[in-house]
């Protein structure tokens, strides 16, 4: 058997660190949440904002949060609204109550989310994402749809060192594995 304590051979076990939780950087699945994909014309944004209880963002790469609900700007007429801790279909009901023309699709079970929190979180995501994640280009509250390795994600910066990665559930194994790998590299 090879000498394990030799300084020249720093051996890494094939499965070392697969917990996805490095000393300072945690990659954890998020709690279930209600999500809707919302499309609407600009003249109907105000009524939908009032019905949802938050201001739907109209600037690129911005989000708005209020009372556990977060609206992510995805495109000029497209938002992803997430209601954390909501049971049932509160977001859908709120949109119906707005009374204006819109398209809302419940995608609660299409997506799942991974939280990346701790020092080096941006570097871990940059393992598979080409975005500039400096605080200047991607400040707290910034969000966008982008690409992570081979899968599409919606990325939200929830803090200076914390991100929420929304990914389609069938891609979540891949996304989690790549994030955990990136986290290992980022904290090495």
């Amino acid at each position: 058997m090879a000498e394990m304590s030799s300084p020249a051979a720093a051996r890494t076990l094939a499965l070392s660190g697969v917990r996805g939780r490095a000393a300072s950087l945690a990659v954890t699945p998020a709690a279930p949440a209600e999500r809707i994909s919302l499309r609407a014309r600009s003249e109907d944004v105000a009524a939908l904002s009032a019905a949802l209880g938050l201001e739907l963002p109209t600037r690129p790469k911005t989000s708005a949060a209020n009372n556990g609900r977060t609206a992510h700007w995805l495109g000029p007429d497209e938002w992803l609204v997430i209601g954390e801790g909501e049971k049932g279909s509160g977001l859908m009901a709120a949109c119906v109550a707005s009374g204006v023309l819109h398209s809302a699709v419940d995608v609660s079970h299409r997506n799942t989310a991974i939280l990346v929190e701790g020092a080096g979180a941006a570097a871990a995501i940059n393992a598979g994402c080409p975005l500039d994640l400096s605080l200047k280009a991607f400040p707290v509250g910034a969000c966008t749809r982008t690409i992570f390795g081979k899968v599409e994600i919606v990325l939200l910066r929830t803090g200076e060192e914390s991100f929420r990665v929304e990914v389609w559930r069938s891609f979540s194994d891949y996304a989690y594995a790549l994030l955990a790998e990136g986290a290992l590299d980022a904290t090495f």
Partner: protein
Amino acid sequence: MLLIHCPYCEEDRSELEFRWAGEAHIARPDAIADITDEEFAEYFFLRNNEKGLTYERWRHIHGCGRFFNAARDTVSDRFLMTYKAGLPKRPVPGVSATEKTVETYEQTEGDAR
């Protein structure tokens, strides 16, 4: 990595987020059922495939999802300009769109006989 300016996201984003979507500014004939087969082929199949400055549609598919127009140099692969879909074709400052850059066999090799 090639950066492409998305006119809807208003910033430069990685080429990985984009997809090419064919030549831009091709208007669908109004009375498409009445045109001849040749005219339909011209509209539907035939493209200029210009060397140099070309106008193309691109889609920010892994971003805002929007289609937009781009002026691109097919020789250098540089994006010269991007602008929102639906806007009229616009000239690129300092670049001639009418320059004959297509090399044919006759031009480069002379008389084939």
